[in-house]
């Protein structure tokens, strides 16, 4: 069933679910919704499985309803009935980088390697979301909630765990990491770049070997401005990892809007 026609595709819009685990050793990362907990909240409100595919956008997305359905968006998280011809606009809330549109039954399409997630690093697009495209609605089985979804705090304190290379970054690294108000300078699905302080990179670590990476890893490039790896991160990387964001705070950190600040706290 065609649910929507895209009137304006907006910025960095894609279909996302929980991604495709199990292929990182072949060079393909997991991908998936940047703010998995926001997507989960909307799916849950509609009675969908939390893994149901949603539309993710950095804003400016305009859709026209083709078949009446129940939706939930980042701007209206309670189920809302939209009817044929009705226009829906999707934009992130203040302070957030990404907005979501979920539909009862989930968006559908032909999965690639088990997932509908578009992967910006691997150039995979399972569902066309360009202007003029039509979005299909599926019949996804209702799924029980799997866990509590933590509420979002206005003040962004992010729990991190020491990274595998923290000991080699020098004795002041941990202090700098945890005492700086890091400003989100840039946010993409690949990662977020932070400024506001500098983590010194010892010369012998500047040209490191390729090591496997994980979502939430806080990498230190030669500039000293850390990068928090996002859902579409490269599977391996050569910069040392000072810390890794705790699972419970990954969605909050990766979803932080450009210009917002993060303070890291070692768990």
């Amino acid at each position: 069933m065609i649910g929507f026609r895209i009137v304006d595709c907006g910025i960095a819009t894609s279909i996302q679910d929980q991604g495709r685990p199990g292929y990182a050793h072949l060079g393909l990362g997991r991908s998936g919704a940047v703010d998995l907990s926001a997507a989960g909240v909307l799916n849950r409100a509609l009675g969908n499985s939390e893994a149901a595919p949603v539309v993710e956008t950095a804003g400016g997305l305009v859709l026209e309803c083709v078949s009446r359905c129940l939706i939930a968006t980042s701007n209206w998280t309670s189920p809302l009935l939209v009817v044929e011809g009705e226009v829906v606009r999707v934009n992130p809330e203040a302070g957030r980088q990404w907005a979501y549109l979920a539909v009862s039954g989930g968006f559908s399409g032909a999965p690639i390697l088990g997932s509908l997630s578009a992967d910006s690093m691997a150039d995979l697009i399972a569902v066309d979301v360009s202007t003029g495209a039509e979005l299909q609605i599926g019949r996804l089985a209702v799924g029980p909630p799997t866990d509590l979804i933590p509420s979002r705090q206005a003040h962004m304190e992010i729990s991190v765990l020491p990274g595998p290379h923290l000991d080699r970054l020098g004795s002041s690294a941990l202090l700098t990491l945890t005492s700086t108000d890091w400003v989100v300078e840039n946010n993409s699905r690949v990662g977020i770049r932070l400024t506001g302080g500098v983590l010194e990179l010892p010369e012998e670590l500047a040209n490191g070997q390729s090591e496997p990476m994980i979502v939430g890893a806080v990498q230190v490039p030669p500039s000293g401005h850390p990068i928090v790896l996002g859902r579409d991160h490269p599977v391996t990387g050569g910069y040392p990892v000072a810390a890794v964001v705790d699972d419970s705070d990954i969605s909050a950190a990766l979803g932080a809007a450009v210009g917002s600040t993060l303070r890291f706290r070692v768990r």
Partner: protein
Amino acid sequence: MIDIAGIEVVPMGTHSLHLRLDDFPTATIAAALRALNLEGVSDVVPAESTMLVRCEHKSARRSVVENLNEILSVGNVAEREVNVEPLEIEMVYDGQDLEIVATACGMSVEEVIHRHLSSEFVAAFCGFAPGFAYLSGLDPLLHLPRRETPRTRVPAGSVSIAAMYSAVYPNPSPGGWHLLGTTDATLWNVESDPPALIEPGRRVRFVRKS
């Protein structure tokens, strides 16, 4: 930090593990661990001399640690390495950088080709792009740093070398490696299972197509 059979195991994130394997064959160990299909272990990712085991919960992490000892026992690892036929990749030596490589290595183009053909490669790990395997085992006389200025677009199927590795570009992408030739082989296809032609640990040989 935990020490298992001389290997340093440190946490990476909430439940995952980062292993410093040094002299152990990372790809082989990763394949052995992946083959166990441990509940809650979603990805086992080898790199040059380290490895990531992505665990979804605490008990998965515990079972990884419990199983590592057995996997790391030398006999077990060595056993897995034999009896695998190398994958043969047919190629044409028509690369744009053949002359540059020959000059930089102080040998003729034919000798570059000969040394590349007689190198016995093993896929050490994948990265950079889906299906891009870093093939170790390149003849040491062909080890060169990457190009100073990367190309903005390298065609799919380009067979290349850089540092101690050879690789085939699965898809068109920017790239800084030296191009020796081309192959028609499909390195990455999401319709296949597995989607990558070369998995970590796979032995590879290049064959000259006339």
